[in-house]
């Protein structure tokens, strides 16, 4: 084992990547397409906010419509009333509806989901949020708003079965033992390093840091996973798990339980306070 990266391999990498870049030519994006996407993002948020405020006003009506499955009139995205609802609370663009049949099976929806003809689906989401373990949240905020777009709203009991309202979406399957341990969710909050000493074991380290052997193996990129022989004398990366709950500052800014019909909330929101 060398301590420093091999200069030869570094040179090979750099020149190969340069060559690769040259072979791609100069991709030129369309600037007007960016502006179009900006517009789309704004419209999406406006619609979602409108839907959120409608939910506050007309919970009963919406509930009946959702349960009855009748198609309700859809507020148009562009022509809807001005934003009056809690805009930030509806930034989510992806909704995953799980069913617990051993695997986490859900329907992932694009942001446009909210502007199609299924407004009820927005109300079918409830209050548990999962932030995937591999997500990056810079501690100082950083591109947080982008991150918020990736919020997952989880609903365990959508009215009348999930497919009815999520038929336009893509089915995704995520094993429960991978990044979405259901129903409890965890997220990697930070990473630390550990110099492996003789006698250290993966299970010992994971219990010491309150993390899991799988996450450690994953964070270190070991191809043989948890069977990897700990490299004595070297430093390894330990992912630190933080429990995520609704007291999380990000969760607070992105979910609003007040706009949801209480009857559809089957996962009680975690109320444990997290100190700042």
């Amino acid at each position, binding site marked *: 084992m060398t301590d420093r990266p091999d200069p030869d*391999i570094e040179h*090979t*990498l750099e020149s190969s990547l340069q060559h690769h870049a040259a072979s*791609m030519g100069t991709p030129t994006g369309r600037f007007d397409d960016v*502006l179009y996407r900006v517009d789309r993002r704004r419209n999406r948020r406006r619609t979602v906010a409108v839907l959120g405020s409608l939910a506050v006003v007309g919970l009963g009506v919406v509930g009946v419509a959702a349960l009855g499955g009748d198609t309700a009139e859809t507020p148009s995205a562009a022509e809807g009333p001005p934003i009056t609802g809690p805009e930030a609370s509806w930034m989510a663009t992806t909704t995953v509806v799980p069913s617990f049949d051993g695997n986490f099976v859900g329907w992932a929806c694009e942001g446009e989901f909210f502007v199609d003809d299924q407004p009820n689906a927005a109300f079918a989401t409830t209050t548990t949020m999962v932030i995937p373990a591999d997500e990056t949240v810079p501690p100082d905020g950083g591109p947080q708003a982008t991150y918020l777009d990736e919020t997952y709203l989880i609903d365990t009991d959508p009215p009348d079965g999930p497919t009815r309202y999520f038929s336009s979406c893509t089915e995704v399957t995520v094993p429960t033992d991978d990044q979405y341990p259901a129903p409890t969710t965890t997220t990697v909050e930070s990473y630390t390093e550990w110099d492996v000493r003789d006698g250290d074991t993966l299970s010992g380290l994971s219990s010491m840091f309150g993390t899991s052997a799988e996450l450690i193996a994953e964070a270190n990129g070991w191809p043989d996973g948890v069977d990897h022989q700990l490299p004595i004398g070297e430093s390894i*990366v330990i992912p630190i798990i933080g429990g995520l709950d609704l007291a999380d500052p990000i969760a607070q800014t992105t979910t609003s339980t007040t706009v949801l019909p209480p009857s559809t909330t089957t996962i009680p929101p975690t109320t444990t306070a997290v100190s700042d």
Partner: protein
Amino acid sequence: MITIGDTMSFELLYERQYAPMVRLAHTLVDTRQRAEEVVQDAFAAVYERYDRIDKPEAYLRTTVLNGCRRTLRRRMLSRRQPIPPSYDGELAYNHVVDAIRRLPHRQRPMVVLRYDLQLTDTEIASTLGVPVGTVKSTLHRAIATLREEITR
């Protein structure tokens, strides 16, 4: 409000960073078309808060990487599953790029950020939101794997 000056510099950012960002994204998502989608969306996100961002380039990189992760999740790609070699369009097969795509998901962006975009450890760390030590150790492992793959 976005002033004319800001708009101009956003356009400059777009001009300069579009190609490198597509290369970065393309090591993570499987087709160039998807990579360009991610990058366009990232630019749209940056555009919206351009006047509030201190370091647009860093912000853009993180946004692109988050977008790639989101795409990967949607495409049901496990993070350990390597992206198959890409034969779409005009790209010539490049065995080093292919080897990078077979790296664990976590290591790929670091290699690209370092050896393609030429960022420092500190810049990579802030882009990915991990400690500098993690960057060093992860890159070290990635290089070890790549050495095996490339020289085999």
